[in-house]
């Protein structure tokens, strides 16, 4: 069953360029990340699904899945240079049997690839660095292609989120679901550091209201113009919205941190307000 649903940022600068950020804003962001960890622990979660927008660490344009779920008993990372990312090499626990059951249920409505081998890049490594620093919670990695167009339409990410919710509710284990990604940003380009804060706040308002129509009203060309190619990663946030099934959301922290290249954000849904609450 689903016991926690939230979203967070994952930019590599969060750990790799920590010393270059305004300490006051950075530390407030880190504190919100730590609170997210405490909230996940308090939920009793027995495994954590991380919906990432991985960056050509495992999947490439020779065979690019729109949606993928890991199915292994462990995952190694980070694929980046540890010194560059500021995260030491690690082996995160998985749960192949749990993945198998989740994937089987998701496949009832969404065609998803599975991967018995998956190297974590910053998209998952940075969230885990804060959320399960001791690697004591099994991780189920999930990916939505947000990097190599053509990308699955937003409504398919929504359907994928609904399928993940159904899958979580089909297993006895208590599941935490965390989406990671943008919002507006132009990562790793000459525009890195540019942030469209107004766009971000409007998006987060739609996300908190869990307004399906408003969230699906975006199109990639407009998102690209207003929020950069990093904005394509809203797919991970939308999947969590769909999984939360109408629940109300709260932004616990959001602030532009240009050296991290994004409005660093922590938010979660109150699953007590979900239409699928028991």
């Amino acid at each position, binding site marked *: 069953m689903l016991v926690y649903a939230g979203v967070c940022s994952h930019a590599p600068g969060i750990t790799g360029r920590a010393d270059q950020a305004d300490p006051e804003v950075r530390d407030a962001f880190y504190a919100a990340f730590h609170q997210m960890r405490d909230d996940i622990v308090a939920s009793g979660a027995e495994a954590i699904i991380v919906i990432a927008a991985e960056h*050509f660490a495992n999947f490439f344009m*020779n065979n690019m899945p729109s949606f993928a779920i890991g199915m292994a008993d462990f995952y190694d990372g980070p*694929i980046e240079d540890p010194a560059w990312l500021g995260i030491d090499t690690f082996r995160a626990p998985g749960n192949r049997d749990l993945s198998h059951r989740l994937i089987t249920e998701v496949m009832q409505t969404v065609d998803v690839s599975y991967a018995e081998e998956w190297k974590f890049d910053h998209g998952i490594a940075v969230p885990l660095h804060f959320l399960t620093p001791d690697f004591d919670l099994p991780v189920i990695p999930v990916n939505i292609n947000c990097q190599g167009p053509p990308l699955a339409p937003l409504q398919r990410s929504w359907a994928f989120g609904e399928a993940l919710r159904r899958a979580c509710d089909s297993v006895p284990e208590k599941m935490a679901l965390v989406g990671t990604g943008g919002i507006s940003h132009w990562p790793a380009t*000459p525009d890195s550091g*540019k942030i*469209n804060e107004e766009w971000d706040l409007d998006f987060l308002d739609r996300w908190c209201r869990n307004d399906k129509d408003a969230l699906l009203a975006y199109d990639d060309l407009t998102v690209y*113009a207003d929020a950069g190619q990093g904005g394509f990663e809203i797919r991970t946030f939308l999947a969590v919205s769909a999984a939360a099934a109408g629940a109300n959301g709260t932004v616990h922290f959001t602030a532009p941190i240009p050296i991290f290249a994004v409005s660093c954000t922590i938010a979660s849904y109150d699953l007590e307000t979900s239409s699928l609450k028991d």
Partner: protein
Amino acid sequence: MSLYYVQKFLFELNRDPAMQERYAHDRHASLESFDLTTEEVSALTEPDIGLLFHLGVNGQILMHFAALHQIEWADYLQQMRDGIAQHGPVREGVYATTGYEGTDAHAKALGQNTTSERK
């Protein structure tokens, strides 16, 4: 022009320590199995970060190549800006979707201050 194979080479280089060793030992030899133009081989062996960005390499792939060459973050960003200034707008790939003519053009499109105005 074979952006796909330029990115394929970088994708494999970024995730394979053995390939990184081959590249360090003999850059040209490590590229032999990829269908690349002379310009692309030059960009990958120099390396020329600005030219690679101009050719359309995704920054999520390119930034790791820059890190492999110990290029600091600020220098990496500047080399891409210089590449656009020297070679022109991004030719292909995701950044060329709406035309990419540089940071100031993007800022103006958003109604934001340009890089020079922010300084």
